[in-house]
């Protein structure tokens, strides 16, 4: 069998003994690029034996926008709107990672209020992103209503972001050295009211989806990515934590002010299946929502009036050097590798390390032997955003 990626031939093309005796041929099935289960424009070439996946080859690049090359021709502030478009469901986290890389290079002191508000917005964004993951995952598995509930609550977060930054999805809110606008006390009160509502809502989601027997049967023991696979491929975020490894950059390598906060890292437990299956990855996300609410409440307690913008020169000129900054984003560790030249207004190179790309590359490893419906559940559970995979 000819494969475009050198991932080895499948050891046994058919796993069904009966069909092997019949010498059946494998059927090539293209899932995507326009397929609702692939969450964007991802094409997966599936070699199937009846309904069993023998081989799955993801083809990426349908959303490639030359962001890395394009960034070499724009000034440092102008890159932020492009960075937004990497992971468009968690644009705040992308902006923060990029801004943190530049601030580290410039040696800028970010005011305390700005740092706290960054944590607040990014945790809200994490909730919004996980709600989206929850809604679309239920949609993949055939439940439509949870999607509407999730979007109702996601909408509340987006409305807050719209009031504070001016846009609903691509904010350009976190700037180099601080923030664009300040939050008013009235908005912060609405955030804490939202946190109370969200806690109740999360319980409803558990009753609606997590405890549903059909959902458990569809996800438990399906698409197992065990800890060895995760470490070999370099997975991060909920995929790694779902496999049982307690690794979260906010706790293990605290950046910003995260060391001041009290929160737990949820990890996958073998509650219904084995550790590292789709159910665990889903559950880690749902538990992270509750932890984010805890962080947001602590931020609101700690907030004090103050400046929100540090001292940054009007025309940014960075010293020559390179830096690698990674942050914990909703989908895993996102990192920027920034190389600059002396007295240049643009970066020499901006490399993005995206977590979703790693997770997509794990699919050929997990897929063989699954039913096609289970494969859909696996693709949904890693929660990919193609803007980040293709860049």
């Amino acid at each position, binding site marked *: 069998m000819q494969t475009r990626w050198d991932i080895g031939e499948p050891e046994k093309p058919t796993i069904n003994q009966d069909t092997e005796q019949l010498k059946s041929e494998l059927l090539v099935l293209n899932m995507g690029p326009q397929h609702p289960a692939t969450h964007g424009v991802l094409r997966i070439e599936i070699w199937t034996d009846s309904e069993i996946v023998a081989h799955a080859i993801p083809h990426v690049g349908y959303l490639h926008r030359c962001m890395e090359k394009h960034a070499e021709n724009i000034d440092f502030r102008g890159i932020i*709107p492009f960075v937004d478009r990497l992971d468009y469901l968690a644009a705040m986290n992308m902006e923060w990672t990029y801004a943190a890389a530049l601030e580290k290079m410039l040696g800028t002191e970010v005011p305390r209020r700005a740092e706290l508000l960054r944590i607040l917005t990014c945790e809200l964004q994490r909730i919004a992103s996980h709600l989206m993951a929850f809604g679309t995952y239920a949609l993949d598995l055939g439940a439509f209503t949870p999607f509407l509930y999730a979007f*109702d609550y996601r909408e509340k977060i987006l409305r807050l972001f*719209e009031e504070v930054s001016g*846009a609903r999805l*691509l904010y350009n809110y976190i700037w180099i050295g601080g923030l664009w606008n300040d939050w008013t006390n009235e908005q912060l009160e609405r955030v804490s009211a939202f946190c109370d509502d969200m806690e109740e809502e999360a319980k*409803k989601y558990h009753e609606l989806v997590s405890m*549903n027997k059909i959902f458990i*049967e569809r996800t438990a023991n399906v698409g197992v990515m065990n800890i060895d696979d995760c470490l070999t491929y370099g997975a991060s975020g909920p995929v790694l934590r779902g496999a049982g490894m307690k690794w979260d950059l906010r706790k293990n390598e605290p950046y910003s002010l995260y060391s001041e906060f009290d929160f737990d890292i949820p990890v996958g437990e073998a509650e219904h299946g084995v550790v590292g299956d789709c159910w665990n990855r889903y559950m880690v996300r749902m538990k992270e929502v509750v932890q984010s609410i805890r962080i947001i409440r602590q931020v609101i307690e700690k907030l004090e009036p103050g400046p929100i913008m540090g001292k940054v020169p009007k025309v940014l000129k960075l010293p020559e050097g390179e830096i690698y900054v990674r942050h914990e984003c909703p989908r895993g560790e996102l990192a920027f590798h920034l190389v600059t030249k002396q007295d240049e207004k643009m970066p020499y190179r901006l490399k993005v390390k995206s977590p979703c790309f790693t997770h997509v590359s794990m699919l050929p490893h997990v897929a063989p032997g699954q039913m096609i419906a289970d494969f859909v559940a696996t693709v949904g559970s890693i929660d990919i955003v193609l803007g980040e995979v293709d860049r």
Partner: protein
Amino acid sequence: MSAQVHQTSSLKEYFAALASGVFTSLKGMWITFRYVWAVKPVSIEYPEVREVLPDRARMRLFNDVQNCISCTQCAMACPVDCIYIASEKFPEGTEIKKTSNGQPIRLHLTQFTIDTALCCYCGLCTTVCPTECLTHSHDFEFSAYTIDQMKYDYLAPDIIAWRDRIVKS
């Protein structure tokens, strides 16, 4: 290759799983059913009912050309280069006008066009504007049939006439 866990179940387990499937689904349906009377509808019937946009909402750009000093800072800040500005010197002896915040207008603006099809609504151009004449309006309904119609020339008389409608108060 990942190991698939195949479970075999007895008849009792089979029916127990079936019962729990029905029971938990009914529980979920009850949550949804409560929405019939206990929860207000959240959808907004858009063309008839409109949400009030927040003050900072970034919609179509509008340039108040009477206050523009042709400094081209917005065009330089734009990451997608969608602002086209042309200007020329006033003939000698012309009286120099002033903008509303007191800056002298030294150049005669001959073209100020924004290609809204290219614009990414990031708001970087409005933050650098020294006279605050370039602003985001709250007008978001401007779909057009051809891409040329998305280019807005702010010196055109009809847009100047619309000023009161689309400028943020």
